[in-house]
């Protein structure tokens, strides 16, 4: 997935002209999108923009999907002396996702526009752009883009680019703040999510790069334009990374509400698809019959899924869903922060259980053990990492129920357990 490209569609709003990728050209950016609203600048622009963001119905694109205006309003009401720190999240720890890095490569100035606008709304004291250290090109592109900008009218906050250790969980809010604070990038225990993270002694607010890019477009064209595509409950476009059994894996920008099978179709499925992984490695499997569902919070929510990191991975019929799920769980186990016992010990146990089932170990006791481990791991960590894995496993048991029954009887399923289909990053010490 190293050379990820974008897939051209009609609804390209965020993704820019491919021929100018990675050039961070400010003139090309202004030519394509126009200047940020200048006639309306002046006192009160922040409140007007905040209203537009609320009217647009923009939700966060980092995985949680909260309405973006809420956090902004809360911090804005705290007053100008607060001086929070805006953390721009380009970490993209999800290996199956490439949308954030494609967006940064394609439209870095959109991201920086959005960051400046949000910083202005919040009277932020500082902007810290966080990129993963195993993708130095992101820091390079954003650095080049920053140098072209002669200071924004909306925020005088200094912008700093920090390259942080790029593990799976490093993009989680409290992990990100910890990394910026110079501590190991692992999540903290946050029983009350409404208490914000801190950067230094200031309040920190985290926004995904795609969310900020949408803000930059809403500021130019308004909420009505934004709502012109997509569903009424979740308007606008979103970036989706499509991979797996497809001809041209890549990042596509689609309107919410587009059917899942249509989105997969844009990447050209090579083989008959038996199931699709939605959301990421901590997401949900969706069966072939459900692929006509609309891609969006409501459509995906009907089978317990969510947009998550904007990921669709197509699994061909020749693969064994149980075996592929086992491989994903093993990867997630290796990515555990290792702070909490139930995650540190439970995730490998889940992988072992799935492995036993995949190898055809007979008997219902293996299945019961798996269910027991799911209950023992779910919601017992400080962060949501184990919860995602449990969600994935439970959805696999539903979607691959037929294969599961075969395995428990000791007979082979439709797919092959010897070959692996999903391309996963290497696990453990072999990584770099």
């Amino acid at each position: 997935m190293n050379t990820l490209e974008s897939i051209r569609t009609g609804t390209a709003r965020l993704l820019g002209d491919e021929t100018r990728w990675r050039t961070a050209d400010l003139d090309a950016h202004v030519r394509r999108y126009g200047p940020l609203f200048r006639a309306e600048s002046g006192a009160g622009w922040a409140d007007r923009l905040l209203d537009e963001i609320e009217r647009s119905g923009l939700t966060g694109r980092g995985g949680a999907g909260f309405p973006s205006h809420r956090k902004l309003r809360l911090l804005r009401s705290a007053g100008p002396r607060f001086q929070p720190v805006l953390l721009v999240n380009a970490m993209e720890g999800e290996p199956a996702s490439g949308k954030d890095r494609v967006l940064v490569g394609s439209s870095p100035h959109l991201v920086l526009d959005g960051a400046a606008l949000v910083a202005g709304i919040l009277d932020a004291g500082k902007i810290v752009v966080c990129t993963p250290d195993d993708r130095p090109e992101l820091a390079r592109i954003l650095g080049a883009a920053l140098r072209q900008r002669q200071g924004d009218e909306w925020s005088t906050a200094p912008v700093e680019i920090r390259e942080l250790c790029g593990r799976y969980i490093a993009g989680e809010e409290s992990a990100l703040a910890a990394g910026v604070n110079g501590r190991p990038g692992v999540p903290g225990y946050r029983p009350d999510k409404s208490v914000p993270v801190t950067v230094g002694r200031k309040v920190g607010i985290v926004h995904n790069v795609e969310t900020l890019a949408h803000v930059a477009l809403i500021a130019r064209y308004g909420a009505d334009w934004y709502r012109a595509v997509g569903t009424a409950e979740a308007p606008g476009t979103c970036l989706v990374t499509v991979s797996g059994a497809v001809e041209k894996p890549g990042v596509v920008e689609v309107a919410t509400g587009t059917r899942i099978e249509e989105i997969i179709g844009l990447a050209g499925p090579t083989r008959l698809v038996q199931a699709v992984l939605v959301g990421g490695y901590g997401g949900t499997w969706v069966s072939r019959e459900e692929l006509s569902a609309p891609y969006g919070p409501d459509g995906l929510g009907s089978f317990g899924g969510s947009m998550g990191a904007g990921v669709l991975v197509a699994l061909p019929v020749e693969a064994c869903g149980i075996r592929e799920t086992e491989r994903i769980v093993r990867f997630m186990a290796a990515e555990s922060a290792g702070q909490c016992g139930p995650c540190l010990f439970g995730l490998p146990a889940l992988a072992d259980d799935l492995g036993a089932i995949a190898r055809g170990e007979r008997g219902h006791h293996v299945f019961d053990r798996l269910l027991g481990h799911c209950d023992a791991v779910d919601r017992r960590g400080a962060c949501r990492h184990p919860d995602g894995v449990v969600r994935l496993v439970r959805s696999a048991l539903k979607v691959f129920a037929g294969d599961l029954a075969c395995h428990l009887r000791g007979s082979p399923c439709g797919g092959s357990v010897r070959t692996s289909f999903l391309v996963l990053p290497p696990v453990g010490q072999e990584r770099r």
Partner: protein
Amino acid sequence: MSSIDLWYTTRATGLVALVLLSGTMVLGILTAGRATSTLPGFARVAIHRRVAVLTVVFLAIHVLTSVLDTYVDINWLAVVVPFTSSYHTGWLALGTVGVDFFLAVAISSALRRHISARAWRLWHWAAYLSWPVAVAHALGMGTDTGLPWVLGLVSACITAVVGTAVWRVVRSARSKGELPPTIISPRRSLRLSAGSPAGAK
């Protein structure tokens, strides 16, 4: 109290304090041990704390009587600042150093709720410094080490503490990764690897 009484009290409480300190150490090292139904883990901690308090009491009396005894020159300063007494200067200094380390452990534990977990842990490890120093002080002062039973008692203390410490080190080395790591915190091993760069995606 006459000088002789003070002197006897100093010697006696010193010995008792050493035994109690050794007991405190053993119980502290055993925190990681398997709990039994007769002695659950928290009970071991509770006893460890009470024995530590008793140690403080006997150590306080030991220090007090040694200062009050005018036969030898040990003033209040010598209690916490080493090498300020003319009486067995070197060996007494060890006792002073032992008191300093022990006070560090005791005070940090008393204020445990107000300091960070890491700070508390660091100060608590000063116990491993206070005990050998106390043993050296006891043996070096020499007052009663001629008595075989005293020598035997001190040897028993040394064996108990050293033996328990060795047992714990061996146990943690052997069972790393098998048992829930109460000795080696998973976060500690994480901290070692958190600095390493991530792999290719």
